[in-house]
């Protein structure tokens, strides 16, 4: 349907032009990756062991960073009303918007995970598996963050609410994405199941979160 394509293209353009695309969350992610070793200490073995966890965790934090602004502007400038009254409806509009936002903002996540993995001393294959795991998990992490952002849109202390709502829901994705990298590194042969679980978690979030977000935004309109 071309209307969905039009929403996707427009929101992609707005995410790049208005929101600066991936710059903010990527910088946040990178800063977390660069600072963690200073706290962990210089021991190469420890850093390598901590690598998958730290990298997956940094990616998770980066998805929370822009959650507040995904819908706050649309809620205050009247865009949500127009989407709600359009033939596409609010739920599908929110779905396409979130999809475009995630693509625009989080395409760097697997790249950062790969480079980060190498920097933390992981071998190329393990770093690649970790990057793949985060590539699978990132859309789910971001969809959950977007859902929390929709619930908190326009509220005071939205940031606090977003962290409280999103973080527990993101746990499985964090566990399996980091688990895939660790399994590849330790040679346990469990990277396949971990990757599958990360992907399954992402697909579940993709199927549920947009409708939750739309319902939250609809309630906010009233």
């Amino acid at each position: 349907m071309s209307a969905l394509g039009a929403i996707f293209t427009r929101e992609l353009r707005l995410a790049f032009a208005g929101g600066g695309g991936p710059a903010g969350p990527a910088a946040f992610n990178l800063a977390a990756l660069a600072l963690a070793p200073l706290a962990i200490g210089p021991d190469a073995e420890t850093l390598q062991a901590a690598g998958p966890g730290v990298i997956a965790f940094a990616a998770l934090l980066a998805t929370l960073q822009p959650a507040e602004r995904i819908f706050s502007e649309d809620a205050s400038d009247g865009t949500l009303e127009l989407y709600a009254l359009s033939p596409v409806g609010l739920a599908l509009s929110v779905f396409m918007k979130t999809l475009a936002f995630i693509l625009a903002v989080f395409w760097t996540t697997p790249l950062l995970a790969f480079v980060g993995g190498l920097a933390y001393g992981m071998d190329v294959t393990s770093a690649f598996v970790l990057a793949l795991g985060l590539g699978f998990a990132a859309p789910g992490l971001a969809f959950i963050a977007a859902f929390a952002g929709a619930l908190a849109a326009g509220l005071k202390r939205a940031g606090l609410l977003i962290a409280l709502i999103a973080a527990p829901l993101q746990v499985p994705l964090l566990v399996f994405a980091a688990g895939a990298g660790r399994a590849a590194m330790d040679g346990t042969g469990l990277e396949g199941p971990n990757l599958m679980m990360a992907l399954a978690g992402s697909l579940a979030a993709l199927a549920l979160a947009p409708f939750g977000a739309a319902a939250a935004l609809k309630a906010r309109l009233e």
Partner: protein
Amino acid sequence: MSTAAFSPSPISVSGLRLERGGKTLLTGFSLDVQPGEALVLLGPNGSGKTTLLRAMGGLVRPAEGEISLDPQSVAFLGHADALKASETVEQSLRFWAGLYGGDVTTLDPVMVDMALAHLARRTCGTLSAGQKRRTALARIALSNRPVWLLDEPAAPLDARSRARLASLVRQHCEAGGIVIAATHVDLGWAGARVEDLRPAPTRTAAGVG
């Protein structure tokens, strides 16, 4: 200008009670609007004009009563203009016209009508309040929807733009469309019916405190 003739069903509102923030704004409100009619809802701030418009657009559920109006026939203009700072006037109009199934070929004449032609490539973030409002009104005109719900459509407009708005409304009504505008000022629309909304009399002491 859109020459498509509209034939919406008459709008009928009956026994409506609207609440906002636990306070009753309107009770027992009824209204009938025929195709081709322009209606001005006049009332002071806080009298429930905006909530009434939002209820008619299906954006707010009324506490009681019936509204016979399909939200899919509505073009809605709220307080905010729904413009994005980084989008140009033309991009915005083209997107919404396309999404609402409007006729994109009438984009140029509508922009001329609303004195936007010279602003087509400007990003909406650089527009004045009046220019933003004119852009939002052009979006309404391009939406190909028979029922226009306009909330304070003329607030930031100068005299000439108000005249442009009045002529836009007249053309829409002549094509069989319905225009319902909420305002606290005189819009100067010749032939428009005026409905005065009084503040709700049922205000409890607890509600005021």
